């Protein structure tokens, strides 16, 4: 049979553990911020025709993240995520190099978002670009 003291110890110990868990759990959950409601941005107006000169680029807002819209020297539009795949700095278009450059750690991408030199381990996500009238629409690339 369980001695009385041991029984009291188990009762008390279980109580303490339960109290600790009951106090810690809400605190730990509290530390994790609620998920931001991303309205599922799939398509945005990234700019207006004529806003960008050939061989230049601009940052636009794609949901909660920055995107990069480029007008190539030949006049085509390209759009891609502007978040560097290395350590998430915001990249920029370098007209002198005709490449996308990250100033933080000297990463380079080509106009298709492929990582060509420096530390970036992956390419930038490429977006689809459509020019409709005066507006340049950028949308997430859909496979197939």
């Amino acid at each position: 049979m369980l001695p009385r003291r041991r029984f009291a110890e188990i009762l008390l110990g279980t109580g303490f553990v339960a109290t600790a868990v009951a106090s810690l759990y809400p605190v730990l959950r509290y530390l994790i911020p609620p998920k931001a409601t991303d309205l599922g941005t799939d398509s945005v107006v990234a700019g207006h025709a004529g806003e960008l000169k050939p061989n230049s680029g601009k940052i636009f807002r794609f949901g909660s993240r920055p995107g990069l819209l480029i007008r190539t020297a030949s006049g085509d539009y390209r759009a891609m995520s502007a978040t560097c795949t290395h350590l998430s700095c915001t990249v920029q278009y370098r007209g002198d190099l005709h490449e996308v450059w990250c100033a933080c750690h000297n990463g380079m991408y080509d106009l298709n978002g492929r990582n060509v030199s420096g530390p970036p381990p992956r390419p930038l996500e490429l977006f689809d670009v459509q020019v409709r009238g005066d507006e340049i629409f950028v949308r997430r690339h859909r496979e197939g």
Partner: protein
Amino acid sequence: MTLLQNVRQWLNERLEWDDLIEPLRKKSVPLHKLSYWYFLGGITLFLFVIQVLTGILLLLYYRPGANEAFESVQYIMTQVQFGWLIRSIHSWSANLMIFTAFAHMFSVLFLKAYRKPRELTWVSGVLLLFLVMGFGFSGYLLPWNTLAFFATKVGTDIAGQVPVIGKPLLIFLRGGEEVTGATLTRFFGFHVAVLPGLATLLILIHVLLIQRQGISVPAKLELEWKAHPAERREMKFFPNFMLRELMAWYMGLGVLGVLAAIFPWNLGVKADPFSSAPAGIKPEWYFLFMFQTLKLIPAKVGFIDGEVLGVLLFGAVGLLWLLLPFFESDDPSRPKPWISRFAVFALAYVAGMSVYGHLAK
């Protein structure tokens, strides 16, 4: 009876005050040609006190939040009387404190003061250094300027590379997926509440350990003094060393005042989360060696991403650094030679990479 004696007697009758300060009177500081290195820890403590005082003053006007932080620091610097000076002292003192903490650490390392029985003093000191760097990192974001914004993006992303716990850690630090006003609020909380609490506790432990064990003597000298006790030279801590230390603090205050007044700290440009990282962006000097290393590691090393490898390497070296005394031999006449070589290499690496990072485009 003078006023001072009266106060002392009053305290003695109630608290046995003289007994309380007795250990301070017994405490002595070894006297040798390297004794001046003993000042560095005290100067670091002094600068910490300056940080607390100027930090409290800045709190009177600073407002955390993406729409207010930059403007409130601007207000402190342009409208509040001497606001520019208080902020400048806070920034300069932060940088000097990190410098003196590093110098103190390396002096302890080279004088082998971390040896048994002072392992825990070393551990608490290294943890304090990590905390101080945490202070630097969290405080850097508070003015919400462009450089700080990207530094925080990169810094938190580095934390996000840690295997397994990286992602939750990143969300915890940023208060979401991205660096936003939520990050600023969190960093503010870390900077003014969490870190000061932890640092105060650790400083108390650090100082109590030193008080308990006395000040270390370099290994060679310790052996010499053991063989010839008559050669042992000491100075009373109170008041002799204390007064010298106070003079060092006074000089530190002078240097700080001059730097803060002649080279006031810049505010920079307000952060815009939807702009590119500016060319030539670099972290503060004390993170430069890590920054430059991450820049040099290629995208892929074997099957592992370069930045993950960098984070793992720095983590491993940091852990080794923290536990260094436990690898040292207990016999002062036979120190482990690899530890000295490692220390020299570490100093050369940190200094060399920092200079390289500073000069590199």
